[in-house]
Structures are given as structure tokens and as C-alpha cells.
């Protein structure tokens, strides 16, 4: 009996560790370092305005930068391409409670994912709400007790702490959902449910997830999911059939796919929250890859100083040589200019 208890305890610990504190050294060998510079004082905030945890960052076609941040209240700010402050979007919005992601679609609509209200909110370029996915539970139902036990079955039109959104060339919407559920949901461009992969249950098989934390789609409509708790990026076709999985670049916190004829995949092996001992040595870097999983290079490292990373939570890669990263534990957005690799590429797999 005692042995049984011990095993049980270890199992629970291992599960917990996987779910929330996953950290893994990348196994890809001989990956070239991509030199980069971080632009000093990129975002210029007006006096009396501060970023909190810089959770979400995205650019539109004009290069304007949107930052979705957890300050005293969760807020969405817009800056121009030079980092000059433009405006606040959705000030005091019903759906803003705990920021998780912001993305801008090809028509420059701004999409926000809030894990405190379980909503995916679409703003038009002017900053007005034009569509809402999910439903914020009514407050008259009373204070919600902190969830314990197994998650209830995932439903078509409600989320459980969703994390990110992506679109295919037809405008279909893909939502990664999330901390509570462990699935990806596909909706048509009008928000009607089509399909899901995964479920409310955690799992590590192909097509199962352990904290799907970010999502992106390529020009052919393939879908890439940062399966953070499983330390992998899973790739699905447009109907959410499993295709392949990339597992050699550490913990997949977030993913970005650059536009254009030759697309690149960026994925971050972010250092874990709380900076546990030793983690700065094995995590913190971002990988640049081909869509087929070939590793091209890596850049960055964990540090609290400018130029280093403190838990990268999101990246913008509209220009694959100009990456904008948002960090949790430094309350900072950095614009990185990637330099060409000095040496001849020796592709690592």
C-alpha cells in the first residue's frame, strides 16, 4: 500500500510538472546562433501610462503595433511603426479581464483572446467590436469557485481559458482552448462551429494536448499548435487531421508564421515563470525553422536585462527579420532585428 501511495504521489507530481512548469532543453544539435539587436526604447508610452505583463503583441499591415497587457486592468494599446503611442482600443471593455493574446488578421481586424472572460473578440480596424466568440458567464450567477477536479465536457461555443486564434486563407477561425480545455476548435468565418481536435481532457497522443498555448496557420491552411505541456508543436491539416509534430526545440510556448511566398516558423523555448534554479541555462531561446520542421537557427537567452528574454509569451513575425517579442516577467516589448547568419548554413534536424 505504501508503495502504491508513493507511486501515486510521484505520478501526480509529474503531471503537475508537465502541465504548468514544463521546461525542456532543446535536443536540436549544432543550431547556428542568429545575431540580433534589440531596438532601445522602441515603444514610447505617454507619461502616466505603463505596460504590465506584456502578454500579447501583433502588428497590422501598416506596421502598427498592438499590445495586450495585464496592467492594473487588462488593456489594449496601439502604437505606430516607430513605437509612437497612437491610442487605447476597447477601453473598459466588458471582455477585458486577463489578457492572453492579440492577433491582427489580413484585413487588419484586431482579435483579442482574454482568458479571464473566456472570450475571443474581433475588432474592426477602427477599434469597434464586430464579433464575439464565447460567452462570459453571468456575474449574477455568483462568484465562481476556483475550479477543481476534472474539466466538464468541452462545448461548441464556450471556452475554458482560451489562449490564441489563427485564420486560414479562407477566413476560417481556429481557436486554441486552452488552460481549461485541451483542444483546438475550427469555426467558419462567421463564427459557426465546424470541428474540433482534442477535448477537455489532457493527453499526449497525436491530436491530444496538454495546454495548447498558441496557434498559427500557414498559406496552405495547415495549422500549427504550441502544445506547451507536451513540449512540442503539433501540425494539422486544414480539417484538423494530425500531420506531424516537432519535438526538438524545447518547450513550445508560442508560435508565429511569417507571411509571403517563403514562410518561416518561429517558436519560443521560453524560460519558465518563477525562474527555477538552472533554467536560464537550458531555456529562453527562440527558434527559426522551415515549415517542414528544419531548424535554421536560434537567438536570444534568458535574462532580466534588456536584450535578453524573461518568459517570452508572444511574437510577431510579419517581417521575418524583424521580430517583436512580448515578455511576461519583464513587462516589456522588444523589437529585434535579426542579422544574416555569418557562416554557411549547416541545417540541423
Amino acid at each position, binding site marked *: 500500500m505504501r508503495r502504491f501511495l508513493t507511486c501515486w504521489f510521484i505520478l501526480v507530481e509529474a503531471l503537475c510538472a508537465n502541465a504548468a512548469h514544463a521546461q525542456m532543453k532543446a535536443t536540436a544539435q549544432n543550431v547556428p546562433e542568429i545575431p540580433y539587436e534589440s531596438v532601445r526604447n522602441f515603444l514610447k508610452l505617454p507619461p502616466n501610462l505603463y505596460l504590465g505583463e506584456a502578454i500579447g503583441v501583433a502588428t497590422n499591415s501598416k506596421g502598427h503595433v498592438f499590445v495586450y497587457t495585464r496592467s*492594473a486592468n487588462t488593456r489594449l494599446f496601439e502604437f505606430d511603426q516607430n513605437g509612437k503611442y497612437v491610442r487605447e482600443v476597447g477601453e473598459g471593455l466588458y471582455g477585458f479581464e486577463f489578457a492572453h493574446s492579440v492577433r491582427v488578421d489580413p484585413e487588419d481586424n484586431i482579435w483579442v483572446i482574454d482568458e479571464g472572460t*473566456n472570450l475571443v473578440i474581433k475588432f474592426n480596424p477602427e477599434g469597434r467590436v464586430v464579433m464575439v466568440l464565447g460567452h462570459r458567464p453571468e456575474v449574477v450567477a455568483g462568484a465562481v469557485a476556483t475550479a477543481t477536479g476534472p474539466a466538464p465536457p468541452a462545448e461548441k461555443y464556450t471556452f475554458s481559458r482560451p489562449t490564441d486564434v489563427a485564420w486560414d486563407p479562407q477566413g476560417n477561425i481556429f481557436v486554441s482552448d486552452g488552460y481549461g480545455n485541451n483542444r483546438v476548435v475550427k469555426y467558419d468565418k462567421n463564427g459557426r462551429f465546424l470541428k474540433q481536435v482534442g477535448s477537455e481532457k489532457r493527453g499526449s497522443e497525436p491530436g491530444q494536448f496538454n495546454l495548447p498555448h498558441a496557434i498559427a496557420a500557414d498559406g496552405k491552411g495547415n495549422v500549427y499548435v504550441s502544445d506547451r505541456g507536451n513540449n512540442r508543436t503539433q501540425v494539422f491539416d486544414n480539417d484538423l487531421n494530425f500531420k506531424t509534430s516537432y519535438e526538438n526545440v524545447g518547450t513550445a510556448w508560442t508560435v508565429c508564421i511569417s507571411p509571403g511566398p517563403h514562410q518561416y516558423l518561429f517558436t519560443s523555448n521560453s524560460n519558465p515563470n518563477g525562474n*527555477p534554479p538552472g533554467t536560464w541555462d537550458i531555456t529562453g531561446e527562440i527558434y527559426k525553422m522551415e515549415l517542414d520542421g528544419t531548424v535554421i537557427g536560434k537567438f536570444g537567452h534568458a535574462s532580466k536585462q534588456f536584450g535578453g528574454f524573461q518568459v517570452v509569451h508572444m511574437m510577431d513575425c510579419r517581417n521575418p527579420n524583424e521580430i517583436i517579442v512580448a515578455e511576461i516577467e519583464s513587462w516589456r516589448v522588444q523589437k529585434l532585428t535579426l542579422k544574416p547568419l555569418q557562416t554557411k548554413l549547416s541545417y540541423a534536424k
Partner: protein
Amino acid sequence: MKRYLLSLLASMLLSGITVAAQSAPEIRFDSEPGLLKFPDNIHLGEAAGVATDSKGNIFVYTRTGHPTISIGTSRAFAHGGSRLFEFDRNGKFVREIGQGLYGFLVAQQVRLDPQDNIWVVDQMSSMVIKLDPTGQVQLLLGRKAEAERIPALPLNRPPGAPGGGGGEGPPAPRGLPGAGAQSDVFQRPTDVAWDASGNIYVADGYGNARVAKFDRDGKFVKSWGSKGDAQSQFSTVHGIAIDAQGNVFVADSGNKRIQVFDPDGNFKTSISNVGSPSAICITPGGHQYLYSSNSNPPEDIDANGEIYKLELTGQVVGKFGRAGKLPKEFGTVNAIDCRNENELYVGEIGNWRVQKLTLHP
């Protein structure tokens, strides 16, 4: 007879015998309780932290309200509750810094480093926040819990208990109670200090019982201490200050002593005749002094309240003040600024004010 006692006292002082603090000489002093002038719509709450910069400007980190808790879908989120103000040396209001800052929940302390950077310690977000002199965030230690649990659990929960992280907090540290994680994860930290090379020392705190050391870039170096009353153990680490030699003075409030360590955390000595040290400060300059407040509990003004002036050896030079609500009386002093040896600023929890004290030793 009186003269005999005085001479006995003097000879004891000279011979280095520890004098019972009660018999320490009284230091005369004056107070300017209304120094700070506020705009009409700004009020101090509990004046948890006060500090001056090299120009004599005064910074106050104050509890202006309880944090607001809002209901999310599966968790509850804490917002606001504390503000940081700057005044010039004449008490004229200069500005507010960090409006709506994510980590400003329950003010605990503010300190200015030699480069005039502003360091804020927040007890509820468990963060140490470094702002540059313009007020921009430069460095963060610790992380605010993502969410609060419903029903609420006490902030001072034992390590590993279900906490505010909503399932996303760092793993419970293993090891001695209060020893904390070997990282910048704090539990209700109380104070911050630096040595001459810029290494950062955090008093941590109410929840943990340790001192955590970081290099100037914020990289964790080491921590020492755990819960208890033995040497190098702590019971409520309530303040920290460092002398010119890099010795670390730790206000071990619950154990009624100030423990002194070398920069690596090796125990050197303990000072234990000044009551329960709640706020400590070391003066700059060639001859350094240590101030320590035996603050009264907020619920009682009939006990304690006096502030001691000591040599760094622990020898008591004198004391002044007592608990109370009048000028020259103290309501739970939580912070002392002693940039000038005879011109102190004290921040009070009980009286919601900052007094400027002029000592006449």
C-alpha cells in the same frame, strides 16, 4: 546618587558592556508632521514606505485602498490598492509615479539606491520593482500571482498550499519552512537593500523567512535563512540595510533582534536590546549609525513605539519618541529614511502620515 548612576552608566558605555535599552539616553527632537502638501484630490493612506533621493526629494509608497477583486470566469483578479508619490524637499507635490502599475497592490516599502533609482516592494504582489529616476520600470524581481483563489485563503499561506497562482504558480519549494525557492519567488517581501557593487538583497518577508541575494542584473545568487529562532533563522524578516563594508543588517522582528551577516550570508553577530525592530536604516558617510524602530502594533498605542540610534556595533547611542497620535509620537513606524543623520523621515501605518524629524543629539 543620581550622579553616581550616571557615571556608572558612562563607564559601562565606555567599557562596552551592553546597556539595557530602557536606560538609553533620550534624544531631543522636533517634528514637522504636516510637511507634505497634497493636491486636493490626493490623500495618503497608510504610509508604508518613505525614502529620499540624492536631491532630497521625498518618495512615499502608500496604501490608498484595498485591492479590488474582480470575478473572472474561473478565477478572481486583484487590481490596484497602492500608489507612489514624489514630493520635493519642501514637501511640495511633484508627481505620481506608476499609475495603474500591475504590481502596486499592498504597499510595503520604497527605497532609493545611490543612482536615484526608485525601488518599490509590494507585499501582496510579492514583487520588487526597480524604476529609473524618470519613473520607467527597469527591473522586476518576483511575479504577481495571476489570480486570487475563491474562497480567499490567507496571503500568508504555507509554501505548497493552494495559492493565488490559480495552478500556474511556481512549484512549492522543498526544504526548510520559510527557506523559499532558490529564485526570485517571494512570499510577502518587506524590504530591499544593495551593497557597494550593486548586488541586491531582498528581505522575504512575512511569508518566507529568508534573505535573497541577486546580482546587479537581477540574477539569483543565493538565499539564506528559514523559519525559527536559532542563529541565521528568522521570524518575520521586516527590514534590511547594508553598511559601507557590505555587512547585511536584518530586522528579525519576531525574534526581537537585528542579525548581522557578511555579504555571503555568514552570521556575524546579533543585536537584541532594541525591542522588536520593524524599520531599520543605516546612515551614509564616514561614521555610520543604525536607526531601528520598536514600532507599536497598530492595535495598541500604549506599548513601545520608540526609535533607537545605535552604533553599527550594536551599542545604543540613544532613543526618542513613543507610540501615539500626536506630533512627535508614532503610529506603527514602517519606514525610516536616514540619508541625513539628524533629519529623519518616518512613515507611519497607524497615523497615515510622514513626519520629518529633526534630532538634537
